[in-house]
């Protein structure tokens, strides 16, 4: 199992945000977590990436416990993410943004850096080439030397993808990837996510857009008021009575 959450509880003071959350993400799949606003979805991502600690329960990645590992070490182990409220480095160029993602993979010493030796130049050159390639995956390579600030909303989301991929993840967490995008951008992004999956990455997304989730995900879990109320294929989820109630309310008899 690639990612495994077992009996996760998370309290903020007296507020119980997550209660006994269990689910798994398998290698090579696109997994979706859906649920109404405030259900605790982003908290799940913050727990997985180490920004928050679970009150109880365990999280394992590649069968190793990552519940107490520091965020940058979790990134090193192969989990990368994008953010619901975009967090690109606005004053940097697109290329620099992506190269920051390669931080841990740039291996050169202080001497090599200070005197611009071969090791430094080679590593930096390869990083820039790799960054350009990643930008081309999301069709932003033609803007590589522009400041990230000048990009449209949708483009900034795609830049976040490329930057996340630069950390060489096994699992990519996408937090509401199509929020604020128009239908054309959504369709384009859908095909790009499928492309990324086909390159061998596993994907776990949180999303509100039902058409998008149902069209992309192989398996879906539904979170409501901090509890997983259903898990299954898109068809199973669509016809699940509890899920329909959570989203649309109970039908009066």
């Amino acid at each position, binding site marked *: 199992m690639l990612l495994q959450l077992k009996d996760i509880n998370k309290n903020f003071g007296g507020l119980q945000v997550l209660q006994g959350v269990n689910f798994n993400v398998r290698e090579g799949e696109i997994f979706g977590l859906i649920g109404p606003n405030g259900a605790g979805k982003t908290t799940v991502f913050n727990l997985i*990436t180490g*920004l928050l600690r679970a009150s109880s329960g365990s999280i394992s990645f590649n069968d190793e416990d990552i519940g107490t590992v*520091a*965020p*940058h070490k979790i*990134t*090193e182990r192969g989990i*990368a*993410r994008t*953010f619901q409220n975009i*967090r*690109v*480095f*606005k*004053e*940097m160029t697109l290329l*620099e943004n992506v*190269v*920051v*993602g*390669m*931080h*841990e993979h*740039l291996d*050169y010493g202080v001497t090599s*850096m*200070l*005197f*611009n030796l071969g090791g*430094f130049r080679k590593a*930096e050159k390869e990083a820039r080439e790799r960054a350009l390639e990643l930008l081309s995956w999301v069709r932003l390579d033609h803007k590589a030397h522009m400041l990230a600030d000048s990009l449209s909303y949708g483009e900034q989301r795609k830049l976040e993808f490329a*930057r996340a991929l*630069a*950390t060489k993840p096994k699992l990519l967490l996408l937090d509401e990837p199509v929020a604020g995008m128009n239908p054309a951008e959504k369709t384009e992004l859908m095909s790009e996510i499928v492309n990324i999956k086909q390159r061998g990455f596993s994907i776990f997304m949180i999303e509100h857009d039902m058409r998008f989730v149902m069209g992309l995900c192989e398996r879906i879990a539904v979170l409501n008021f901090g509890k997983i109320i259903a898990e299954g294929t898109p068809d199973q989820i669509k016809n699940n009575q509890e899920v329909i109630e959570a989203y649309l309310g109970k039908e009066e008899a």
Partner: protein
Amino acid sequence: MGFMEWWDGFWATYNTVIFSIGVNAMLALSIYVTLSCGLLSLANAAFMGIGAYTASLLTMQFEMPFPIALAAGGVLPALVALVIGIPTLRLSGVYLAMATLGFGEVVRVIVLNLDITGGPMGLNGVPPITEWWHIVLILGVTIYALARLRRSKTGRAFEAIKEDEVAARLMGVNVAGYKLLAFVIGAAIAGVAGGLNAHYTFTIGPNNYGFENAVDILTMAVFGGTSNLIGPMIGSTILSLLPEVLRHFKDFRLAINGLILILVVLYLPKGIWDPRRIRAVLGRNAEKKVK
């Protein structure tokens, strides 16, 4: 009057001003390093003081060679920065500024009450062994090293932390480690600057490295602009020369000095040297010419 005579007279009058341009440039660069990592630290005056006292005591009391004294003047503040950085760098923004100001005050009070530092009298008769080329050489090495750093993964990590700490962390950047590194590098540069400064001013005292100096150092960097290395150098040069240039205004000197600062902060919030704005202005003029 021959050129050489003119030069001798000029040098005798202005050598301390010229020395202070170099030392102030190093101080501005020392705070640039921490600012480039998003840290508003006001401890650099205290680090300068620690470096100045360390280097001076080594040359005065132990008759150590100048290079060793200067090196120790860089190493000791760096070690102090390492120790106080671990607890304080968890703070951000104005809270860090206040904690580091508090640290500066603690250093001042300690120096004021120790015997070895000469208490309130400070140290008198520090040997005047700083030569102009010492300053040029050390400033040059500092600029070179910082320029290399800027173009490396370390420089990018600093900038990423400044822009968005959470995103930097999740890109695999050890945020706490790099903040500490920036803090320590800044302390070492300020300490060496203090050592150089002490060895041409004859006397140093606890009040040379207090709150006022901390703010002066910050002002030089912010006035020049902190988006690259050139800004702090321009800022420190202008602010070192300004009191001399405004000498004719006598009593109004400080007021005019302050007015210039206010105008720059109001109209050039990113400092005098802001490459993006300069490019934008030049671009606009180029367009006009085409039309």
